[in-house]
């Protein structure tokens, strides 16, 4: 993609900042055949966005996070894509080649789609771009769209997403249907100043089983972008949902990923998030155990380098009895990077026989990296098994000694231990293709010479 063409395009259309009401009006006009309920919903969200304050260093929900760089004035909704941008986006989208369905979005516009098989569609499965689903499956969609948001401090950005989102993947799996191969959605961002609002909505009906992977990437390495995505999972009674999100926006991107999981009776949900990109990313995860016997695992791995910041806020709400939730967030920090993990387990009075766990492990691979942990518990029922743990430290000295004592070089030993640290999360990826790509991406990240000169640690 050539920069010149992007610049020309932006100036030609004099695109408005996403914070301006003209931008919002233009967006509404651009929606084709939008139903009234959607316009109303979006208008309400826009009003909320406009009235809510920006986070400040004093905001409790932003404790330890950088709030200085959140201004959105410099971003615009992008207009038409150039053919080269479309081509770049398509080229980027081959990480998983065995799938049940695939969609590629560039700046929230669908540029490629592989349909689900006819037998799945005929049995009632819906795999559709959201822009299309809004018109074709409005009544179903309306029941779920933006009904459960994380609300963990990014309400303003969440509202902006609600006002400006236009596309994403919509996956509905009917009662009892089990789909083995994953559905894959690629979200690509192209061009300077572009803002995207990718939306993922998964509805798994009773007893359904499904797996979806979202991959977030940039077509250019140096474009300054804003991404504000939302992924909502609704798992019906006994449904099994597996969701994976790979965040690999370029290092100039400011990103928000505001995700939620709602699990009905005996549902089983597992999410895996891997954060590699963005100069600053805010990842919110609200998991609600709403039906008895439900089980949710949330795994996350972040590998920030340079001066990246990964800001993670999580909430596990136990509303129903006899549920289990488990959260494992691991961060391996290099250079001057920062992470924040702020998690809360909230057990409501009615949620007896709860098992809830939350673990945050931070591996400091450089003395200037900064790890913050705020692991919280609010327990209002008494018959619970609940624990959280947070550790921050360097590679274990004794483990390193053991590897060295087998003749493995220090560099290789450190690399083995660091990748060993990832394994606890990677082992849940359930996809070898994806694992290989991630390993090679992370490998690349580690062999970029950090300022200290040593590829793995500065010790």
């Amino acid at each position: 993609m050539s920069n010149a063409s992007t610049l020309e395009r932006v100036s030609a259309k004099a695109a408005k900042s996403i914070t301006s009401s003209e931008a919002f009006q233009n967006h509404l006009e651009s929606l084709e055949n939008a139903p009234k309920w959607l316009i109303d919903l979006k208008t309400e969200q826009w009003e909320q966005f406009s009235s809510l304050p920006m986070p400040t260093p004093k905001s409790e929900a932003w404790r330890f996070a950088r709030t200085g760089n959140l201004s959105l004035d410099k971003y615009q909704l992008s207009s038409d894509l150039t053919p080269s941008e479309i081509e770049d986006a398509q080229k980027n989208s081959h990480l998983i080649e065995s799938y049940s369905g695939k969609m590629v979005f560039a700046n929230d516009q669908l540029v490629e789609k592989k349909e689900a098989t006819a037998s799945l569609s005929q049995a009632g499965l819906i795999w559709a771009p959201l822009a299309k689903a809004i018109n074709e499956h409005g009544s179903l969609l309306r029941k779920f769209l933006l009904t459960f948001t994380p609300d963990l401090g990014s309400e303003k950005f969440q509202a902006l997403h609600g006002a400006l989102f236009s596309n994403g993947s919509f996956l509905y799996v009917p009662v009892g249907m089990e789909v083995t191969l994953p559905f894959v959605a690629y979200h690509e961002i192209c061009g300077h100043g572009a803002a995207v609002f990718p939306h993922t909505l998964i509805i798994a009906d009773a007893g359904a089983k499904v797996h979806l992977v979202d991959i977030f990437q940039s077509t250019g390495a140096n474009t300054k972008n804003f991404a504000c995505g939302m992924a909502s999972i609704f798992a019906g009674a006994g449904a099994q949902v597996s969701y994976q999100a790979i965040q690999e926006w370029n290092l100039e991107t400011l990103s928000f990923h505001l995700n939620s999981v709602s699990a009905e009776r005996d549902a089983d949900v597992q999410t895996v998030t891997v954060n590699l990109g963005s100069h600053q990313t805010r990842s919110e995860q609200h998991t609600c155990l709403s039906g008895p016997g439900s089980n949710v695992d949330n795994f996350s791995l972040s590998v920030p380098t340079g001066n990246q910041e990964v800001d993670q806020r999580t909430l596990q709400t136990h509303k129903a009895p006899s549920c289990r939730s488990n959260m494992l967030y691991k961060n391996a920090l290099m250079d001057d990077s920062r992470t924040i993990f702020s998690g809360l387990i909230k057990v409501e009075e009615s949620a007896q026989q709860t098992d809830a766990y939350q673990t945050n492990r931070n591996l400091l691979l450089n003395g200037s990296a900064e790890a913050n942990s705020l692991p919280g518990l609010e327990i209002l029922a008494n018959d619970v098994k609940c624990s959280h743990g947070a550790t921050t430290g360097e590679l274990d000295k004794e483990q390193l000694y053991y590897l060295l004592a087998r003749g493995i070089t220090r560099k290789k030993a450190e690399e083995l231990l660091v990748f060993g640290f990832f394994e606890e999360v990677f082992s849940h990826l359930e996809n070898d293709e994806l694992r290989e790509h991630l390993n090679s991406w992370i490998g690349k990240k580690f062999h970029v010479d950090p300022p200290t000169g040593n590829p793995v640690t500065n010790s």
Partner: protein
Amino acid sequence: MSSLDIRNLEIHVEGKPIVKDFTLNVPKGEVHALMGPNGSGKSTLAKALAGHEDYQIVAGEASLNGQNILKMEVDEIARAGLFMAFQYPSEIPGVSIANFIRAALTARLADNEELDAARYYRRLYEKMDLLKIDRKFTARSVNEGFSGGEKKRCEILQMAMLQPHFAIMDETDSGLDIDALKIVSHGVNTMRGPDLGILLITHYQRLLDYIVPDKVHVMWDGRIVRSGGKELALELEEKGYDWVKEEVAVV
């Protein structure tokens, strides 16, 4: 020259002398047992020889086949041919046994050499069978969640794969039931031969019924106080360590 040679070694832990004026020569091809009561400095000696940073060697010499190992890094000592079977092997989460041993073998190759994966697995399975380790273990993280016996067998597996010139086996019999002890001993006896020297550190005579030593040394308060043939171990078993203490006190 083909020996593990230790002369007048003094080792401190947190500033306190634990091993004092320790001298021992284990020629290649021989198995020597080092016995002694708890706290006599046996494990300190082992970890210090393997280069652990918490153990300061303040005096003396130690060489492997004539090569001074005191100036070497932990991994260099290992690649020079010294293998340490740990009393308490570390758990390494996320690193599979197969990858781990492969990395250790690769580290012993020259830069332009590569490990033949098929041959590697063939050898690995062969040694695992010898030690009665389930082949599924290759995918498991090193020592993580292993029972005491599994950990010790995993140590011997590594020793068999890495083919050292010398091995120091630190209390390899501790925590083993009789069946596991037999398996481990069988594994070690299979490796015995002119190319391998072994220093067997143990508290009890029991292990020596299965791995019969060429020489037995008794350690007390940081130094060797008696040396003899394998019958010394039996004498110790019969009379207990107090007997040694009394003898030392008389001297």
